[in-house]
């Protein structure tokens, strides 16, 4: 298959997938269950999520392996099954993606702090390498290192993947916005720091995921573009900030009226509308994170698919 970055260079706008975590939950993943174990125990459901995004118009889909590093898996006593779980994750997405869509092997943060001596750079390199190798073996075309907030950890991950595979590397970080409208990650990384360090570490595509919703993204993309006009840029925002709503008491159903549910505020229509501004600001790949659904992706794809960069 032609490389993702080559298609971007030719001016194409690509669409990635939406949320996995919230989709897993809607398929019955329970609190306290390891999501990556579902690759083995609920392969059908994982395949269905992957397939739903392909059907919605995604050019590329991720894998169910966000927490597949040894530290996160150890929380469930599954660290010895790292290779098996990641490989299976990539195989399931590969099956849904076929040969015309890309599989992005997902790598999330370790959950440990380097600066607090909870983990050493060497241990991080090792676990990110293990994960990338297994994802590649399962059929991943590219590796996406995502939801990073610590620049040091993100750069270690990029270099680890570079040294252990020949996959294209995407790295996206998660930003907050201060009262003064300045963007920074939880660890204090500015967009300028991110661009400089990720590009020099060797990431092929950089970007932003998760966060407060698509409303922030046009400004954030403009800021990133000030520091680098060329690096391929991927944007995968949450469907807004989630709110909690009590369900309407329904006496006839006998349901507990005090039960509530979490609702994401940005609708597919809204995200699709704003995605035009995100593309115009200079993004090359757009998709979604927490709270987005195949319907969000379908509407985004319908709007951005016929657009191109560099052709006025």
């Amino acid at each position: 298959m032609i490389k993702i970055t080559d298609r971007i260079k030719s001016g194409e706008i690509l669409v990635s997938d939406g949320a996995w975590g919230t989709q897993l939950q809607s398929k019955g993943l329970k609190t306290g269950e390891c999501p990556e174990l579902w690759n083995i125990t609920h392969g059908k459901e994982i395949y269905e999520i992957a397939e739903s995004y392909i059907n919605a118009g995604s050019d590329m889909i991720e894998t169910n392996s966000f927490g597949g590093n040894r530290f996160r898996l150890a929380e469930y006593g599954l660290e010895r099954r790292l290779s098996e779980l990641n490989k299976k994750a990539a195989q399931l997405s590969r099956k849904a993606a076929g040969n015309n869509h890309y599989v992005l092997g997902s790598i999330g943060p370790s959950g440990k702090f380097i600066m607090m001596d909870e983990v050493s750079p060497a241990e991080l390199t090792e676990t990110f390498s293990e994960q990338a190798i297994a994802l590649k073996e399962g059929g991943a075309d590219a590796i996406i290192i995502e939801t990073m907030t610590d620049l040091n950890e993100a750069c270690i991950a990029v270099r680890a993947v570079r040294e252990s595979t020949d996959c294209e590397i995407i790295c996206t970080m998660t930003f907050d916005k201060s009262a003064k409208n300045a963007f920074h990650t939880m660890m204090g990384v500015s967009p300028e720091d991110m661009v400089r360090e990720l590009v020099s570490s060797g990431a092929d595509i950089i970007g932003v995921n998760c966060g407060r919703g698509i409303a922030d993204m046009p400004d954030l993309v403009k800021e990133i573009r000030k520091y680098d006009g060329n690096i391929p840029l991927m944007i995968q925002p949450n469907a807004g900030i989630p709110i909690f709503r009590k369900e309407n008491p329904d006496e006839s159903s006998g349901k507990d009226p005090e039960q509530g549910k979490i609702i994401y505020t940005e609708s597919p229509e809204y995200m699709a509308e704003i995605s035009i501004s995100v593309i115009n600001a200079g993004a090359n790949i757009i998709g979604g994170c927490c709270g987005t659904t195949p319907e969000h992706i379908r509407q985004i794809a319908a709007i951005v698919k016929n657009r191109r960069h560099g052709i006025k």
Partner: protein
Amino acid sequence: MESLLDKIAHCVEEGKINRSSPYPPEMKDQDGADELTQWAVKQGISPDDILQNGFIRAMDKVGKKFSEHKIFVPQMLMSAKAMSVAMEHLKPFFQSGETKRRGVFIIGTVTGDLHEIGKNLAAMMIEGSGWEVINLGKDVRKEKFVQAVHKHPDCVVGLSALLTTTMIHMADTIRALKEEFPQLRIIIGGAPVNQEFCDNAGADFYAADPQAAVVYLKQLS
């Protein structure tokens, strides 16, 4: 001249843990909060004075700087660590009852959620404002919160969640706690949480950052 307590406050504010700690680089090879606090206790400075004019004063500044986005999680973590290491020297006085704290604060990340960075930061900031903190850890079931409150009926409870998928358990936990302890004050915080969620879930206070929790607790005690 800078007093010993000023020096302690400065170490805590800058995150200088002890002499061998390399952070911050400009304070290399100087005594840290650990050594200075030990020295202050030996000198006979009252633990109350150390707590108030060393730790609480410094952590108050740290909390404010964090709220204003002048510092971020790494700097705050280092300050909190410096304080908690130094606090060890005061523990005997707390245990003997010679030094009283403002009250008991019980904190934990709700069931299903394995994240505890924010919760630990809040715990350390609240400890640094003079409360005895009981940290129940992460993935804490509601029954465990209820049990802990039974042991400390006058406490205040803090609930944390990072994931939108576990927020819902916050609401469950609040319900279980309020059912048994209607007077109990519950603070909530975490990335996906906001005021609207707080109102709907029946918590008493939404803390946008650790400092907000500290300020709220100050007016309770």
